[in-house]
């Protein structure tokens, strides 16, 4: 098992270089001049442009720019944005916020989703099940920005339970409302996945045998139904950690959160190679670690899944 984890971690290295190279190339190929974009309508003097070009190696060929960048990473320097701020700083301020938001959303969707899905699956065809299906369908079909504005209006403006936007430093209580919005669609999917998987397992032979052994209903549900139903849900959660961590542009926009999504969006518009590439590289790593975690959880949940020693 250790060997397996080690091998998976080693795989991160080539993937990291492959991903950064590709992203760097794509940003390089974007049309438009980053310096011109930076100054907008009032172009600076030719001397300033040249100085900036040289500072950011924009006059060099692509491969040289990339090597400068990789060299920087290896010495701990992620470069600077065109406005002079170190990319490292930007990462350090944006990722913790997104991380908190993502974890909050994940906790909400996992706990509530599995619970609702489990009850719906056990009571298939009953009122609770039918309502859960309708609500989840609604959540899936309503676009995030609509739900975001509705939540903001109802819970923050009308009821005053939360602050309308997230304050500086993004304290946890301010993030609850955006986390709910962010989690809503995944919550709906988890309800449906859990429900389907539970209702399959309820009629499984081994569940009947477990009951025939004389076990109580709660124990049968907990030990023999829930655990067996978690595999598809865990898969989904794993993928979702990835997508939550790369940020949510719409939700961040509505609640004015300075997270990863918005930062990357701005950087792409400005053509800031180092910023985009650093952020995406971190995202790729987060994604891969989340996948590794899911694969390890599989082995814990289902002994039939064996890894080569």
């Amino acid at each position: 098992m250790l060997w397996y984890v080690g091998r998976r971690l080693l795989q991160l290295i080539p993937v990291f270089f492959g991903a950064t190279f590709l992203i760097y190339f794509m940003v390089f190929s974007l049309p438009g001049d980053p310096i011109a974009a930076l100054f907008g309508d009032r172009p600076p003097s030719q001397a300033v442009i040249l100085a900036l070009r040289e500072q950011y190696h924009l006059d060099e060929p692509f491969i040289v720019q990339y090597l400068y960048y990789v060299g920087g990473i290896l010495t701990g320097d992620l470069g600077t944005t065109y406005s002079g701020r170190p990319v490292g700083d930007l990462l350090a301020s944006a990722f913790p916020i997104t991380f908190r938001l993502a974890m909050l959303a994940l906790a909400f969707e996992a706990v509530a989703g599995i619970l609702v899905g489990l009850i719906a699956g056990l009571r298939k065809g009953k009122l609770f099940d039918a309502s859960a299906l309708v609500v989840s369908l609604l959540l899936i079909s309503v676009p995030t920005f609509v739900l975001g504005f509705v939540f903001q209006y109802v819970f923050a403006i009308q009821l005053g339970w939360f602050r309308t936007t997230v304050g500086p430093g993004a304290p946890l209580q301010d993030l609850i409302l955006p986390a709910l919005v962010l989690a809503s669609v995944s919550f709906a999917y988890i309800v449906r996945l859990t429900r389907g998987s539970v209702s399959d397992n309820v009629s499984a032979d081994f569940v009947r045998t477990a009951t025939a052994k004389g076990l109580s209903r709660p124990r049968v549900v907990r030990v023999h139904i829930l655990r067996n139903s978690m595999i598809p849900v865990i898969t989904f959660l794993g993928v979702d950690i990835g997508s939550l961590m790369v940020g949510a542009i719409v939700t961040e926009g509505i609640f004015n959160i300075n997270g990863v999504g918005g930062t990357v969006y701005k950087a792409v518009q400005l053509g800031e190679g180092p910023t985009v590439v650093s952020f995406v590289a971190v995202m790729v790593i987060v994604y891969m670690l989340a996948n590794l975690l899911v694969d390890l959880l599989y082995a814990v949940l289902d002994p039939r899944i064996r890894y080569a020693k």
Partner: protein
Amino acid sequence: MTGQTTVSAATSATDAASAPLLEIRDLEVGFTTQRGFVPAVRGVNLTLGQGETLAIVGESGSGKSTTAQAIIDLLPGTGRVTAGQILFEGKDLTTVSARQMQDVRGRLIGYVPQDPMSNLNPVWNIGFQVEEAIKANGVAQGRDARKRTIEVLKEAGLADAGDRLKQYPHQFSGGMRQRVLIGIGLSSRPKLLIADEPTSALDVTVQRTILDHLETLTRDYGTSVLFITHDLGLAVERAEHLVVMYKGKVVEAGRSTDILANPLHPYTQKLVSAAPSLASRRIQSERRPETTEHMDIASIGARDAHLIERADEREAVTTPDIITVENASKVYQIRQGGFKTKELKAVDDVSFSIPRGTTTAIVGESGSGKSTAAKLVLKLEEMTSGSIRFDGTEIGSLSGKDLLSFRRRVQPVFQDPYGSLDPLYSVGRTIEEPLVTHGVGDKASRRARVLELLEQVALPASTINRYPNELSGGQRQRIAVARALALKPDVIVLDEAVSALDVLVQGQILDLLTDLQSELGLTYLFITHDLAVVRLIADNVCVMQKGRIVEAATTDEVFDNPQQEYTRKLLEAIPGANFHFGR
């Protein structure tokens, strides 16, 4: 009790002084479906005394399993008891609360389910699943529970139980898993054990060891057993008392031997004549008068006379071989983690030949290589070495057009009538498909051929527009046979083609196959684990064990005078084979 005596011959035959352990009175069970309420059990009465064994026999859908599940309130889905009583030690189980029922399950009434593959939770280890039952029923706690777990498993016949507690179900063979389930069922020494087809998913030899073991255990503990089975031979052999169920009703009840010797209800009579293990004894008896003294029910069923006649005809003529297999071997490379591989000889230097117009059976346990041998003959797998000649041509080198024409002449029918038909294809399209693939005829003539085939397999022409899910297992297997016949083949390879079917349906399909053989001059290669079926249909038998043919002879020679220890073991394992009817 007054109305009971007539139906429950079971009690009257035993010690009348001992109060019955289980008494079912006028039980009615039904399911709510979209088309309304469907009764499954209609007024069943039965009585089981202390320490007795009672078997409920019937085909699938007869309500036998539903009756058993009703006892411990494990009816699937919408099923519920609508009337009647289930008296266990005098208490009516249909009225107890869920909490009380939980105490009955496991502790007082043990349950051994049908399919060992699906009845253990794949994500928990064996030790956990046994220990859980022991703890839940208050037999032992803590460290004692672990000790008791090992004891239970050892009693159930897992000698190395201590070392295997941490292993998971997928690391156990089917027979081992069934032992675990029996261990769980008996772990708290219940007064009654419900065994619902406990061995129907297992090989015939494994079945025998497990049932022998179960019998010893229940006798030692004085446990009563309610045995559910579709196999009359098995029921007669294992239980003193029989209850025959048909369409939700008890049609006959009494001592097993009495019922077998003198079946009163027409359904029981049909069942007795169709049970392959018993029927095969009858064929033998008519052929060899010296053995008839044991059997006085030998004359039932006109089909047997017909079969015997045909068998005599076959013996008279000698025919050229259509398939000759010489020294065929098939070796698989098994991956063992990393780059290591192990060789597995699935088929090891096998030679046999099949005369045209006859039936050759290959028998053996699962893993004996019999199915691989069939795949080699079908050229679905490539031989590793050896030669197979079909009608004089070596099939190893066939390709392109020649291969296609070989496929046209050699057709398969597989075991699972549910899995081998495409659920999205109508019956007509399924049967027509080989004709389309081989470019036979035009649309109109193909349709005519499909209708002709449906008639040959005795299905109504209206079946053409139906879909597999609307048909029964027997009907589906008829369609599989029709599809195999579509191209007018010379040889049909039947891989366990009747193993998944009920005895009566099995009999019908075997009849159909023999009729088709005489009508169309077909040659069959019949792969099966069931020697009883072999007796009915085969001219020659090859017995396979671990990839080799250990015995090959005519059917009569193999049955009357088995040369190999292994063959004798297989023969003895036929349920009911050792049963003497006259006693």
